[in-house]
């Protein structure tokens, strides 16, 4: 073949361009700065762990297109080479035999395989027919890219706010707690606080099992000779109690009283931090109808309200001895100690979750235990990206990215500008929050059930919603309702789904997560998904494209281009809705770069994608320095570390609710739980998790080391309660509430040890759905349900069989 000079130059340029494009797409392993390949042919690359909000970094070993090993990443600041049992076995999550590999449509009650084109068309047609009756349910396990795509599709595309996420069920109250105290979400401190604190208080969270690597970060300090006092404030004894210096057992829901008891003592003893309070705090109380911003309160009024909460009064309500309440009051009153409080679902899945969050922030502010490394009220996030995706990118029914809300005209205008859509595209009316969304799905259309089509991605509402009969299973009898589930395995949700879509998971796709300490972390695709499973992000874009082709006006941006237009290095549009071209560009990078401008408004600044490729995560706000490098912020609102703080102020709450750089110390009274034990139902029923299983167990129950260690759910009970009823250890008993009953084995003196009159059931077992019988009373401000308290009774099982298979 003859080639002249011009053609040769063209060919070289083309080769160079496509090589660059290939490198930028970063799809193939070994093209990244962090991948190393050994002589044994195993390529190791970094990724954040798929599981909890700690956000450990792992190294994933890939050989011949499969994950073959996992190591803790020694270069990671979070975990420094250590993992927990779930993290060590995260690679096995990809290889359960019943992985979903093809889209399936339910025909005559049975799921039948169909093609992707057909599946996309089914969804698009339903959306086209009734766009206002379509809802998207996302997840704190959504990558940031997936969340951005879903959010843009709904809010900037369909002009609908019917998008919400499962963090509504886990972190919502933490969010409202932060917003009402500081005016902006997420912790001010970071994990460095754990290395510096003298006292660690666990407020109803079993940190040894739920954030194991963080917990061992604290207790392993004792091996180095440091003194750390651990106080376990809990409703039952757990593994965390074993490491605690003090165990304070309290009656469920009375955490409200305990927090007020500490405030009372700080005021009475005069040990509150007068200077800090004067300079940096205002006082606040809730309005008649609970609201996020409440109403002002004077210090005098605050003191008066706290007068009631003497140690004796707190003891009467909570059962914690008065001298222990005084112990807490004394600790907080000391200026020489650094105190870190942590909490998780005990505070958040609480029918007064916003209040208890506010109160805990309040006692830290009142006592001045804030702003220095080690002094921190730190909410621990459960999911790997509830922060990074849902809270920060705003994938909730009332939010917009970067801490904005749909109700605010300026916020809408900002978002319309960043998303490049015509003014007025975004609706000002919030959509339905999770519980309401599913309630509407499960209500007949004639009776006001105006959610007809619901698409759930990367989550399992059929197991994780409370009160399942009402909020999920009732959908079964409604013929015109349509449930779409994108997931990786058959789950309790796919049982009722009309359309099941197989998804790629974790290192089968590019992705980014944001963990509990504001650390945004990135990973590259390392292996291919099985069969015809495809990225959730692609699925959203493909449906958007189909709607574009069907002529839906919302799928065009302001310039008439498709809402999801991605260009390659040469500037040419890549048809990413066509699966074989999806990885021709790095969609994840493009979505992040589109999202970045949103983040500066509330100082949640993110760095460019390339920085996250190099780092084991960076904590926002990430600020560019004079020399071009990017610097993360460890302690917000503190002058010594946060570059946005005005010089000379030491501490500045620059998003203050009262617009005067001050944080708010809230008062909230103790109230009883929605459903307390009574004569008919004399037990408290609490639900929660165990170390070995991730949430609904769809991944971990398929990992033999984990399911072998914890094969099934059980109910924990005090030995005296059991012996009074003649229950033997391991015997199947029936737990009954006003919503239903569940038969399962009883575990006495097992891992968790509840007090008399109290039961605990973990929720990971899809064969023993405890959420069939929970109440889920929601917080009036955050709408997060309470999974920790309802009334139950127990009895011997009528039949010997342990569970009905679904």
């Amino acid at each position: 073949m003859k080639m002249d000079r011009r053609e040769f130059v063209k060919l070289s340029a083309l080769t160079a361009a496509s090589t660059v494009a290939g490198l930028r797409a970063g799809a193939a392993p070994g093209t990244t700065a962090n991948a190393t390949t050994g002589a044994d042919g195993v390529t190791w690359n970094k990724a954040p762990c798929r599981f909890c909000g700690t956000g450990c970094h792992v190294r994933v070993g890939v050989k011949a297109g499969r994950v073959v090993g996992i190591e803790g990443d020694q270069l990671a600041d979070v975990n420094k080479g250590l993992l927990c049992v779930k993290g060590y076995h995260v690679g096995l999550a990809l290889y359960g035999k019943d992985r979903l590999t093809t889209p399936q449509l339910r025909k005559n009650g049975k799921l039948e395989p169909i093609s992707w084109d057909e599946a996309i068309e089914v969804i698009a047609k339903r959306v086209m027919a009734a766009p206002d009756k379509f809802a998207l349910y996302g997840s704190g396990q959504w990558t940031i890219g997936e969340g951005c795509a879903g959010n843009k599709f709904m809010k900037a595309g369909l002009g609908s706010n019917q998008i919400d996420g499962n963090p509504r069920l886990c972190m919502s109250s933490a969010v409202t707690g932060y917003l009402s105290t500081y005016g902006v979400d997420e912790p001010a401190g970071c994990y460095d606080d754990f290395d510096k604190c003298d006292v660690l208080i666990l407020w109803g969270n079993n940190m040894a099992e739920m954030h194991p690597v963080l917990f061992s970060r604290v207790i392993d300090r004792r091996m180095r000779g440091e003194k750390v006092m651990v106080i376990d404030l809990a409703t039952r004894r757990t593994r965390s109690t074993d490491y605690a210096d003090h165990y304070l057992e309290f009656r469920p829901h009375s955490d409200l009283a305990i927090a007020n008891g500490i405030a009372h003592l700080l005021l009475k003893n005069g040990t509150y931090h007068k200077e800090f309070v004067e300079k940096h705090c205002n006082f606040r109380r809730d309005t008649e109808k609970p609201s996020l911003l409440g109403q002002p309160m004077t210090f005098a009024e605050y003191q008066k309200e706290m007068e009631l909460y003497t140690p004796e009064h707190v003891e009467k309500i909570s059962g914690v001895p008065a001298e222990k309440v005084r112990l807490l009051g004394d600790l907080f009153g000391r200026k020489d100690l650094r105190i870190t409080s942590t909490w998780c679902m005990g505070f958040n899945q609480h029918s007064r979750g916003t209040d208890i969050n506010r109160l805990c922030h309040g006692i830290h502010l009142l006592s001045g235990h804030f702003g220095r490394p080690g002094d921190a009220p730190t909410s621990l996030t459960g999911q790997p990206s509830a922060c990074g995706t849902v809270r920060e990118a705003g994938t909730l029914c009332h939010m917009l990215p970067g801490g904005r809300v749909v109700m605010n005209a300026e916020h809408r205008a900002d978002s319309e500008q960043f998303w490049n859509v015509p003014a007025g595209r975004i609706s000002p009316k919030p959509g339905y929050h999770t519980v309401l969304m599913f309630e509407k799905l499960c209500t007949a259309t004639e009776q006001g059930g105006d959610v007809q089509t619901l698409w759930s991605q990367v989550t399992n509402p059929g197991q994780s919603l409370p009160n399942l009969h009402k909020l999920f299973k009732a959908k079964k009898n409604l013929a015109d309702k349509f449930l779409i589930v994108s997931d990786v395995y058959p789950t309790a949700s796919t049982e009722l789904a009309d359309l099941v879509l197989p998804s790629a998971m974790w290192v089968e796709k590019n992705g980014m997560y944001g963990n509990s300490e504001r650390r945004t972390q990135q990973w590259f695709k390392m292996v291919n998904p099985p069969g015809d499973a495809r990225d959730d992000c692609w699925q959203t874009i493909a449906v958007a494209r189909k709607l574009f082709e069907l002529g839906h006006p919302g799928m065009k941006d302001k310039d008439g281009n498709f809402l999801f237009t991605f260009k390659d290095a040469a500037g040419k549009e890549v048809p990413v809705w066509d699966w074989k071209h999806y990885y021709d560009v790095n969609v994840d990078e493009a979505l992040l770069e589109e999202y970045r401008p949103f983040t500066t408004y509330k100082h949640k600044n993110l760095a460019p994608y390339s920085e996250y490729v190099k780092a084991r995560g960076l904590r926002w706000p990430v600020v560019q320095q004079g020399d071009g490098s990017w610097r993360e912020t460890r302690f917000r609102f503190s002058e010594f570390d946060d570059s946005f703080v005005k010089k000379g102020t030491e501490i500045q709450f620059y998003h203050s609710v009262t617009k005067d750089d001050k944080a708010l110390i809230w008062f909230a009274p103790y109230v009883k739980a929605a459903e307390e034990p009574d004569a008919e139902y004399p037990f408290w029923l609490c639900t929660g998790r165990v170390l070995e299983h991730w949430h609904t167990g769809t991944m971990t129950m398929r990992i033999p080391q984990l399911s072998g260690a914890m094969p099934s759910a059980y109910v924990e009970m005090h030995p005296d309660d059991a012996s009074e009823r003649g229950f033997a250890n391991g015997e199947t008993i029936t737990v009954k509430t006003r919503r239903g009953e569940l038969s399962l084995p009883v575990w006495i003196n097992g891992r968790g040890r509840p007090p008399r009159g109290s039961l605990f059931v973990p929720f990971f077992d899809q064969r023993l759905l405890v959420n069939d019988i929970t109440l889920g009373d929601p917080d009036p401000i955050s709408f997060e349900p309470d999974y920790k308290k309802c009334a139950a009774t127990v009895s011997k099982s009528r039949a010997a069989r342990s569970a009905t298979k679904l």
Partner: protein
Amino acid sequence: MKPINPITYRRAVWIFGAILVTASVSGYFMGLQQTGSQLNSPGTISLTVPNAERRAVMATETIPVATSYREQDRLNDGPNANWKNDLNKLVQPTVDLTSLTNVTEAERALALRERAARRAFDGAPPVVPHPIAQNSAAVCLACHGPGLVIKDKVASKMSHAAYTSCTQCHVPAGGPGLLATGSELLAPIAENQFTGLAANLKGSRAWPKAPPTVPHSTLMRSDCMSCHGPQGLFGLRTPHPDRQACVQCHVPDAELDQRNFFRAAAEMTKPTAQNTSAK
């Protein structure tokens, strides 16, 4: 026979009666005295004592209340009272440090298989092959801290530096032991088709008698003797246990140990302002 003198008869009766009465009266008063067993009940005794009361009763010096079966410490009572349940006193087998162990390929392969059976992949924390106490790490350290050999059972010495929370990474293979085998709740939901990284068989030797390099990552394997010493599996035993400074001759691999810091660092930009910021 002579008839009994009525006067003697009456006197004998009086003397007998006096002795009888004296004995009864003094016996009565002796019986009123407290006996050595201190049986001086304060009030009514019920046969069953509720727990809360039981503790209160035990606190006072009256009736020694019978302990429940569950609470009896039969290991330290009665004929077992002189048993010494102290693991430190167990005599460990002596090892001839000067003998050479010639491990065959077959023995080596067996040892590697045994290790692999407890691990999802080489480098994973082994599952615990025996039931565990759910809530105490001190219990683990009792055997796995110093390492123990009891007949043919080996409790291997921890191969890594001490971490406080053992059960964070090591979970029991047999679960909590709550359900009877055969229970349908023990059946796995689905099989897993993961195949894990296998242990490399041999390190590389520069020439036939050279010390082999370490063919595995030393992450979590900082105590060589844990596996290669007298308390490790026979198939992995070192032929020269008398030499204590292992890494003097046997070098770990920088790639496997993730110590390619220089390569990773080269990709990073110049030092950031973070390095110099105040705490």
